[in-house]
């Protein structure tokens, strides 16, 4: 701990050039705040760095002041309608899809991947979190159609990157994009008196999966999953810096982050976050490095009280293995807890996380 702190300190000096850019997380903050606004449909004042500053204040040396981020407030039903897959747009999925329109179709028409990949995908389609198929605009009778679409997406991806192929967890990630995109299409289609449009949604799910595996979780699904371990080590160091007592508590109960966190990343937080939090959380991941680390810290900090109150391995792992872990003792989803905790996590300057990340890579 002491060793790590000393190596980190230079990065936290206010004069550090790396930190002299208060806008380092501007785009991320803006995207994040934008979506929270849509979710909460609230009229609170523009986002402040107040909770963030409070957390950083606990860390020695003194906090780095983050400039308030101007937040564009969406108005009108059109923006709200787009909110459900705003994260897809932010990830550039639409642009990619239009730019390389034929790639997905070509991959679908290409020779099939090895038979063991196909059979694994098929078995897993029925075992992918069925809650992801429940959607307001996606009647149950269309579930088989959705599954076939998801099958095509996963097999196309296995053709695109045969060395990675198909890894369990990808289904959760692609299904979310497929449904979110299809829901929007369905709304438009109904307005025009037509049926569901699935080709666009399918291609969007494919590009989202590619974006996730290349940009958000690079190397996480590669053989050996070394990137997962690196990320977990980084998360541990970041938590040690931010809330050492929470980390000590988890350690004392035998709950290592390596037990619970890999599944967060490999499903892109789809199972650990309550459904209402998924959209905004995905938006927060757009276009920024180390965003998954911030989000994972947000998950931990948002459940801090519950975790600290837990007195057994079972209680802490339960709180960290499912979306219901976000509920407090009164079985009430702690509204806004993730939002606040995520904001606190965002206060960890990117440069500092990078520094931690480098030291993890060197280790």
């Amino acid at each position, binding site marked *: 701990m002491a060793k790590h702190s000393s190596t980190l300190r230079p990065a936290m000096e206010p004069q550090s050039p790396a930190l002299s850019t208060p806008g380092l997380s501007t785009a991320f903050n803006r995207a994040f705040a934008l979506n929270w606004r849509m979710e909460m449909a609230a009229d609170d004042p523009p986002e402040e760095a107040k909770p963030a500053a409070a957390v950083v204040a606990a860390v020695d040396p003194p906090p780095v002041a983050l400039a308030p981020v101007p937040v564009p407030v969406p108005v009108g039903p059109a923006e709200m309608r787009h909110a459900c897959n705003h994260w897809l747009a932010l990830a550039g999925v639409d642009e990619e899809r239009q730019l390389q329109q034929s790639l997905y179709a070509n991959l679908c028409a290409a020779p099939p991947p090895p038979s063991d990949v196909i059979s694994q995908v098929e078995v897993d389609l*029925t*075992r992918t979190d069925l809650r992801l198929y429940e959607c307001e605009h996606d009647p149950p009778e269309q579930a088989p159609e959705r599954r076939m679409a998801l099958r095509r997406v996963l097999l196309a991806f296995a053709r695109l990157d045969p060395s990675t192929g198909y890894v369990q967890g990808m289904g959760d990630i692609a299904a979310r994009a497929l449904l979110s995109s299809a829901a929007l299409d369905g709304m438009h289609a109904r307005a025009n008196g037509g049926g569901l449009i699935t080709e666009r949604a399918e291609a969007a799910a494919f590009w989202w999966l590619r974006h996730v595996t290349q940009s958000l979780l690079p190397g996480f699904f590669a053989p050996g999953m070394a990137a997962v*371990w690196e990320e977990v080590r980084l998360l541990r160091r970041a938590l040690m810096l931010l809330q050492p007592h929470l980390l000590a508590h988890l350690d004392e109960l035998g709950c290592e982050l390596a037990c619970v966190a890999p599944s967060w990343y490999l499903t892109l937080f789809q199972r650990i976050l309550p459904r209402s939090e998924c959209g905004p959380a995905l938006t927060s991941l757009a276009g920024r490095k180390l965003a998954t680390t911030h989000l994972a810290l947000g998950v931990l900090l948002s459940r801090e009280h519950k975790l600290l109150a837990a007195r057994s*391995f079972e209680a802490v792992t339960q709180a960290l293995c499912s979306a219901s872990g976000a509920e407090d003792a009164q079985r009430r989803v702690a509204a806004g807890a993730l939002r606040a905790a995520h904001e606190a996590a965002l206060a960890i300057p990117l440069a500092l996380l990078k520094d931690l990340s480098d030291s993890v890579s060197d280790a």
Partner: protein
Amino acid sequence: MSYAYLFKYIIIGDTGVGKSCLLLQFTDKRFQQVHDLTIGVEFGARMITIDNKQIKLQIWDTAGQESFRSITRSYYRGAAGALLVYDITRRETFNHLTSWLDDARQHSNSNMTIMLIGNKTDLEHRRAVSFEEGQQFANEHGLIFLETSAKTAANVEEAFINTARRIYEKIQQGVFDVSNESFGIKVGMAAQQTGSVNVSIQGQQRSSSGCC
């Protein structure tokens, strides 16, 4: 609830052999035809009784896909027992046992008790691996062996409890230094009250009567 000992178990084996269903049957006494994919590891716990002693089983249910092997390897540490599961209707899951066993032996403590389980005996008409083959593999590698059905619950209790019994016997024989938690065994408060273990303790977690 107080326990005399806590044993850590790990359930391993190819994807789709029924690891999570075995755990659910053991902890909740129910079967779920379609179980969510296990990504990484999931956890279960149940109290059992052996030799009038309350023993808590802390069970780690792992992902079976080959891609997750490196992650699963880190979960063997500190396990007292392993349930190595194959599907009697899919021969390839039996063929992969050696590779699983290599992993288990290499990444666990040498005294870890391993129970080999041929699951899905309710699908007898689709059987691809005979009981004798399973038994022979177990004999050759020094494993305990049972065939189970997570669906009908046949032998599920026995699979978990016989493993615990074997671990308990090793404790009695002094094989383990139980103060060293790397063996996957924790001594609870109840173990320190020799001869005064309350065998009638019943809490929220079901307690077995020690059937074997």
